[in-house]
């Protein structure tokens, strides 16, 4: 297979997830299956797509990390300013300083957790906990700000031969920033009273009313 396609093809797909998620959230793109969704529900769907794109991109960086631990990687360029080898392959900065876990693994877990909050809200916007979960997801995403700043600093200053720009790392950072932006707008809309309370799940009172009407 063409090496350039292997190196940059997945990047285009991952960035596509982020762009598609943002477009759906902002109502710039729709398909018949979601055309009757409320704007809030579309925002949540778009957020979920961005988060799943972030999860996949993080997994790709983890694969590069594992390959670079034993030799060269064919999943990303190793030469030039825009490359992964000097960043993800750096022995000092490719893992978190506390647990020693690869950053890709941390990204996967973080996006999976954010995805769980978002999917829960998306499936049941009517529940009492649903609106609170926006706040939980927002607070959980906040540590990503110093994380991104630190990793960009590492890329530009600390790694051997700096500056380097790791395209897949940057795609993860963009997905995280997009996630935070969408969470911010969803919170703002919710605070303005635009939360969508329609959904498949019905309240106890509704179920009771339906049972009574059937009895009659």
């Amino acid at each position, binding site marked *: 297979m063409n090496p350039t396609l292997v190196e940059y093809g997945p990047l285009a797909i991952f960035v596509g997830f982020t762009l598609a998620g943002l477009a759906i959230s902002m109502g710039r793109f729709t398909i018949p299956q979601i055309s009757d969704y409320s704007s809030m529900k579309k925002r949540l769907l778009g957020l979920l797509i961005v988060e799943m794109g972030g999860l996949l991109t993080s997994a790709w960086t983890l694969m590069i990390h594992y390959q670079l631990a034993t030799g060269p990687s064919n999943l990303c360029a190793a030469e030039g300013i825009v490359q992964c080898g000097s960043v993800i392959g750096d022995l000092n900065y490719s893992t978190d300083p506390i647990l020693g876990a690869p950053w890709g693994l941390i990204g996967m877990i973080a996006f999976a957790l954010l995805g769980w909050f978002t999917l*829960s809200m998306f499936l049941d916007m009517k529940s009492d906990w649903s609106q609170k979960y926006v706040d939980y997801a927002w607070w959980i995403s906040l540590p990503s700000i110093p994380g991104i700043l630190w990793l960009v600093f590492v890329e530009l200053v600390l790694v051997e031969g700096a500056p380097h720009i790791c395209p897949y790392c940057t795609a993860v950072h963009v997905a995280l920033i997009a996630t935070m932006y969408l969470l911010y707008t969803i919170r703002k809309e919710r605070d303005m009273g635009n939360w969508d309370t329609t959904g498949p799940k019905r309240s106890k009172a509704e179920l009771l009313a339906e049972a009574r009407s059937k009895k009659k």
Partner: protein
Amino acid sequence: MKTESNNYRMLKNDEDADARMLAFFGISGILSVVAVSVLLLAPPADLGVDEGKLAPNFVSQAYDTSWSSFELYDHIDQTWTEGEEGEWVMLLFIDTDCSYCFNAGEEHSDMHSAYASNVKFFTIATELQLPNHDSSKKEIVDYKEKNDNSGCKADRTNCNQRPGDVHNWPYIDDLDRSIADDYDLPGTPFYLLLSPDGIVQWNSQQSSDLDPFGALQYHVGGGA
């Protein structure tokens, strides 16, 4: 008995149905598929110091004629296969204050003289956490070069008294013990013989029936 509360349709009819559980299974499923794909497409390396494992990489400063940066994986060839030409790597872990290491200085010189043509030698100078085992980069250089310095062998012997010749191969700084920690250093001296692809072929603690010379002879063949 209700068992279907995780089904999406049940959210419509079951007051106990919880979308969070359904979401948990959904995200767990995605995460599992992605994790399995990662492990299949790019399995993590079997790193370690046991024989048969890939020696962990490390980066530090090395002194040969001056201090410069050093990375172990710059000296191994992952594509090497058995039967091909290639340079083996001998890692010698020492502490400049360790008397056993000090006394082995001549054996190290002899090994290098015999095998330098097809084995790269690297001494990793660490600092054991023992009384009077305070080393320094200067002491590492003086130990290697046999310079005048009274700080060797737990400050009891001058470095210029070390047996053997001046060691003409790189000495790597591990005063912060980072390499020793990664390699689970059992003590000093400690030796690892790596094949050209970085796989540990002999671990002096694991196969103590062989001495360093014997290991070199067994794996690399007769010395020069």
